[in-house]
């Protein structure tokens, strides 16, 4: 009986992982396809990669996405760490509940609402004080920071609450100032978690279509916006090539980051 059930579990695991990886695998296989058709095999070719690297529109959008991703992830990491510090180290200060709610609400908010609210804010601000004069990199970045801060706060807070506080208390007893305690004791201990949070924030920003579409202006097009408009028109092997590059970069990044984190934990 037991053997029978573990047979069922093994089968479901094979099915589950096949379900997760076969689509990505087929995407990668057809990026090397000679034929213009995305789903019929016509021989091996690298021509779609060559076409991709000649496509100015995609390259510019990729650069813009990287810029927005790096800035918004970095800003969100700083603000999220401060928020997590307040939530995990300041006890039950007045207004803690609304503060915590405000920092976690963007996690469950549908992206369409976050995007719409950001846009309406920028439009209203422009009416009132004339800033921001034009929607573009800055407005996308600000809208992303809101979402990413929530993710960073969650990651940093869970690390801070796990951490042994006695080291911080000892340093404080020995006369170290709060900021010194943070930079000398706390920060080195939570640094791996913050790196993970930064990576998560960066990928979320790079990947976001909905918020960027709302917050962006005519001049600024991010990579997901380009992919989306191309996908709506139909499948093109160039997108397969782009997807393959993204998948391989992400896999390499995540695997090496987790190896580094695991080595540091030992």
């Amino acid at each position, binding site marked *: 009986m037991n053997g029978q059930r573990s047979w069922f*579990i093994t089968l*479901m*695991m094979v099915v*589950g*992982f096949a*379900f*997760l*990886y*076969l*689509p*990505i695998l*087929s*995407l990668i296989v*057809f990026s090397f396809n000679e034929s213009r058709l995305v*789903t*019929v095999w016509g021989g091996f070719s690298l021509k779609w990669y060559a076409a991709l690297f000649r496509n100015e529109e995609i390259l510019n959008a990729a650069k813009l996405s990287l810029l927005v991703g790096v800035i918004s992830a970095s800003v969100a990491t700083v*603000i*999220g760490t*401060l928020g997590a510090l*307040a939530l995990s180290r*300041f006890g039950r*200060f007045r207004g803690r509940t609304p*503060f915590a709610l*405000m*920092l976690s*609400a963007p996690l*469950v908010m*549908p992206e*369409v*609402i976050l995007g*719409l*609210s*950001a846009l*309406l*804010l920028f*439009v*209203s601000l422009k009416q009132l004080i004339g800033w921001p004069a034009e929607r573009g990199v800055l407005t996308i970045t*600000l809208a992303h*920071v*809101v979402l990413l*801060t929530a993710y960073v706060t969650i990651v940093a807070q869970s690390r801070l609450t796990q951490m042994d506080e006695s080291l911080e208390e000892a340093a404080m007893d020995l006369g170290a*100032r*709060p*900021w*010194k305690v943070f930079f000398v004791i706390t920060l080195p201990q939570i640094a791996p978690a913050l790196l993970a949070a930064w990576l998560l924030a960066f990928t979320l920003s*790079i*990947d976001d*279509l*909905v918020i960027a*579409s709302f917050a962006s202006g005519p001049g600024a097009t991010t990579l997901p916006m380009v*992919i*989306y408009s191309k*996908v709506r028109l139909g*499948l093109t092997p160039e*997108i397969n090539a782009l*997807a393959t590059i*993204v*998948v391989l970069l992400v*896999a390499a990044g*995540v695997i090496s980051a987790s190896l580094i984190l695991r080595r540091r934990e030992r």
Partner: protein
Amino acid sequence: MSATNWPQMWFHFFRGLYRQLGVLGREIQGKRGRAVVIGVPLLMMGLFFVLPFVIILKISFSEAELAQPPYTSLWAWAEGGYLTIKLNFSNYLLLWQDDLYLGAYLNSIKIAAISTLFALLLGYPLAYGIARTSKAWRLTLLMLIILPFWTSFLIRIYAWIGLLNNTGVINNALLALGLIDQPLQMIRTDFAVYIGIVYCYLPFMVLPLVATLVRMDQTLLEAAADLGCRPTTAFFKITLPLSMPGIAAGCLLVFIPAIGEFVIPDLLGGPDSVMIGRTLWTEFFTNNDWPLAASVAVAMLAFIVVPTLLFEKVQERQEPAQK
């Protein structure tokens, strides 16, 4: 200082800067340090997250007009110093009366609920298998579950278009095997939306399930077996009830974002699979009716708040159990 001594000058400059920072740090420490730690996130989220909701609420009561920006102002100074405030409730009345919007809400809930069920049916055995392997295997398998989550959302949905199309990989394979005579219509159906949601949100289902299943006391199962309980019965009487918190957390983590989903129904769904996120997008980008889009957003929040409060409840109940 002589011009030949550039490195030393820079050294002094940076040392001075560093000392100034130290002075600044001492200035804002203690109570003021706390104010900074709380104040910066408060300012950022207050200005860019809370304030916009007030604005959404305001604009949902205005009227659409052909202007820049395309909505009317709520208040105006009338002749003789009167402040007139015009609240336009017609957007909300429209949401309630027009079947399109109510239908879109109900359809969102239906699609999210069915996808959540599928995600549970696929995710539970997967999580069970992962929780019962050795620790080294568990970490690797968990990594394999999370890895697709790090790759682009849009690209994962794009991959499914290639599979589900009428001329896609699955149809081609079935045609070549002679199992079907003409392509199955899979893309642009609700079925494709279910697949897309399950595919994109499966990690959210599996991770909490693995967490509760790993924590479970294995000796209970041994005791049950010793007392002559069959494994299937033991599963339904012991494992399943004990993993309820994980099931609840996983289901809500899939259900909540699935309700507001835009990209998946837009790219995989047909004209019938209208979901509320897609309706908001259309009102805004295609019809340029900002006030209506804002009121759709306000109404949508109500659908998010209830499951989120449920999720908080589940979390609270889970926390004392961990200690």
